[in-house]
């Protein structure tokens, strides 16, 4: 009786511990609070900002995007060096495992190159984001004024 009790406890403990394991493996990326800046006229460039959250245990990378609303979509980073504004084309923006990355004015942004028409506050803009591991994610992004 005593021994089978111990065995039972060990069995239950092992089962519980395996249930506490890492869970599904791989990145789990979600997009929060995506918004687009207005663009005054067709042909202009725009910027989309958002928070990329990765709840998974593996990092992922935002590598690009497409949108029917613009000629091209690329990830860029604004940098300020001694008062001089520069921009860099980012091939892959890493979202660390169990981490997040904020795309906001003055930093990273998803750049819309050559919009097909002016974007006014209140418009919605369809955009597909491409992640290296997580694949494609389709969003409807709100255009709003800069706060």
């Amino acid at each position, binding site marked *: 009786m005593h021994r089978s009790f111990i065995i039972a406890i060990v069995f239950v403990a092992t089962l519980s511990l395996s249930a506490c394991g890492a869970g599904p493996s791989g990145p789990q990326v979600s997009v929060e609070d995506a918004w687009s800046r207005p663009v005054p006229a067709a042909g202009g460039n725009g910027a989309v900002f958002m928070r990329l959250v990765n709840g998974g245990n593996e990092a992922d990378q935002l590598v690009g995007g497409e949108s029917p609303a613009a000629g091209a979509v690329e990830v860029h980073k604004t940098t300020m060096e001694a008062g001089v504004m520069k921009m860099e084309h980012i*091939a892959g923006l890493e979202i660390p495992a169990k981490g997040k990355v904020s795309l906001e004015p003055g930093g990273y942004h998803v750049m819309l190159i050559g919009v097909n028409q002016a974007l006014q506050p209140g418009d919605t803009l369809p955009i597909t984001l491409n992640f290296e591991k997580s694949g494609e994610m389709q969003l409807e992004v709100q255009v709003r004024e800069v706060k």
Partner: protein
Amino acid sequence: MVKTRSGANQPKPTASFGRWLALVGFIALLLTACQSYQFNGTQYPDPQLAPDFELTATNGERFQLRDQQGQVVLMFFGYTSCPDVCPTTLAEAKRVLEGLGEDADRVKFVFITVDPERDTPEVLGTYVTAFHPAILGLTGAPHELAAVRQAYGIFAENEVLEGSATGYIVNHTARTFLVDPEGHLRLSYAYGTSPEDVLEDIRHLLG
């Protein structure tokens, strides 16, 4: 010490203390009145007349800086293909102009292009007026624009981004400059300065 009618000595602190207090208070008042206004922007230590220039405004007129005396002029150098820093600065300019209310017609905000190749007067005009109808876009021949940049110490350089559909971007100084109503280059503001800080300085200069 004064002698009261009953003959006992009594200190009379109230009157002399009150006098001291009044004196201290008066000095403090003088000191606060003498304290000059603290500008939020970076001051030019020995303000000179702002370098004059003449460029073409997007409203079709020629714009000469010297003719703007009596107004506060805010100047920013940027380009319309810029997706981030320039729109942010113009959105802040809009907040400043809106915050001025009636005083807005004593202030000019000019956006001087660093990309005359792509920023034609039409493109520039549509762009700036989308933010606020009172913002003026200024352009000109490349050598005219280069001369103004040099006079104000502005860096601007085209850079081709490999593998990018942007063609080229322009790296440029992102400060805003303020010329006072007497035509002196008084202040500059770093990118990201709050509109409220700029408004405070402008209101002080408009008097």
